[in-house]
């Protein structure tokens, strides 16, 4: 590659050429295969370096997300060392009692309350949605100011009626502020669609019924959650407790 060519390529890519100069360059590009190859090489190198160094906010957020998921999914399993202990009958009986208490766990009757707590993860770069308002809603939600989050989400849902994420989180704010019927209506809509929030919505539908002391309906919704979905374990925990 001649230096002159390279300099022109860089000026062309950077938009530093005059109009007439650019025209000449583009004409040459159409006929000179070597020049074209050099231009493609330059662009490819530039993109590679960009992916390596741009390290912008979204790239960093993505990598942080991976780090935390890695910790969750690639934990080395700690094998408990098996010990054989000789115990006499009295201890044996006591041990059984303790195990029984742990299973029965009367102090743990609000197991589903612990699941009612969730973080709002808003998605960056979702086309039509107003980003500032979405961010404000997310911040309010995660600061547990559900009334404020609800107020911010309502107009967003109105503007984007097909956005399941917004509808799902609006439902959660209604659930948290005890507007159970409205929450259920939003969860039902989301659950009916082929949405990635489909089973989250089913899960929170069940929690809403539990808040209303309707265990039968709650069970119906928990049983709708299939084994391979993320919510299955939580649903099973609650079903076992009911």
């Amino acid at each position, binding site marked *: 590659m001649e230096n002159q060519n390279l300099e022109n390529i860089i000026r062309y890519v950077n938009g530093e050429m005059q109009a007439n100069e650019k025209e000449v360059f583009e004409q040459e590009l159409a006929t000179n295969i070597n020049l074209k190859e050099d231009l493609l090489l330059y662009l490819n190198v530039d993109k590679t370096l960009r992916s390596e160094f741009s390290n912008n906010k979204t790239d960093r957020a993505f990598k942080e997300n991976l780090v935390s998921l890695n910790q969750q*999914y690639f934990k080395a399993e700690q094998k408990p060392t098996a010990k054989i202990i000789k115990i006499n009958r009295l201890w044996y009986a006591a041990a059984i009692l303790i195990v029984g208490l742990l299973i029965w766990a009367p102090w743990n009757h609000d197991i589903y309350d612990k699941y009612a707590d969730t973080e709002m993860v808003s998605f960056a770069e979702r086309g039509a949605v107003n980003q500032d308002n979405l961010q404000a809603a997310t911040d309010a939600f995660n600061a547990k100011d559900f009334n404020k989050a609800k107020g911010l989400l309502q107009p967003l849902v109105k503007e984007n009626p097909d956005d399941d994420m917004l509808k799902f989180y609006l439902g959660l704010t209604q659930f948290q502020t005890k507007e159970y019927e409205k929450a259920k209506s939003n969860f039902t809509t989301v659950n009916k669609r082929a949405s990635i929030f489909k089973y989250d919505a089913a899960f929170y539908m069940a929690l809403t019924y539990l808040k209303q002391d309707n265990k039968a309906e709650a069970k119906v919704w928990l049983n709708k959650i299939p084994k391979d979905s993320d919510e299955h374990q939580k649903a099973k925990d609650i079903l076992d407790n009911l």
Partner: protein
Amino acid sequence: MQKIHKDQYFLEGLISNNHKVVQEIYAKFSDKIKRHILNNNGSVDDAGDVFQECLIDLYNQAKYKDLKLSCPFEPFFLLMCKRKWLNALKKKAIIPVTNNEEDLLNISEDVFLQAEELEAQQEQSELYLKMFQKLSERCQEIISLSLTDQHQEKIAEDLGVTYGYLRKKKSECMASLILMIRKEQG
């Protein structure tokens, strides 16, 4: 132009850091990769590293180089991870990887092609970065800083040079880099 596979949503989800989609990838595939690597001289940590590196490769290719998926995601991603592990073993000079002829038989041509294409791209990127390391430190600093989101004027100020000088120097540095790559590629 090849048809884009409906599983392209996995790549879109990675680019937009869509938590649900990224988690779906972990939930569906992490166990498979863990099992493969544990059965082939690796640890759980190795499996985690390979998995994470493959996702970052995909993210970069999709975001910066416009990779489009023309085959189903699952076999493609699993093949990518397995190859990455195979290469890591080769580097450590451990003889590999128990054959998965059975799995391989089930992988269709388009998956292989796309995995190979991606691997070629990765190798190319590695070469570019290796050459980049051979630039002078000043050149490396100037190029890497100018590719961040910061304002170029601000970068010039931080480096203690004028904006015009920064632009000129960056072009020179890029030119040396491209010449080195050309030479290396023969």
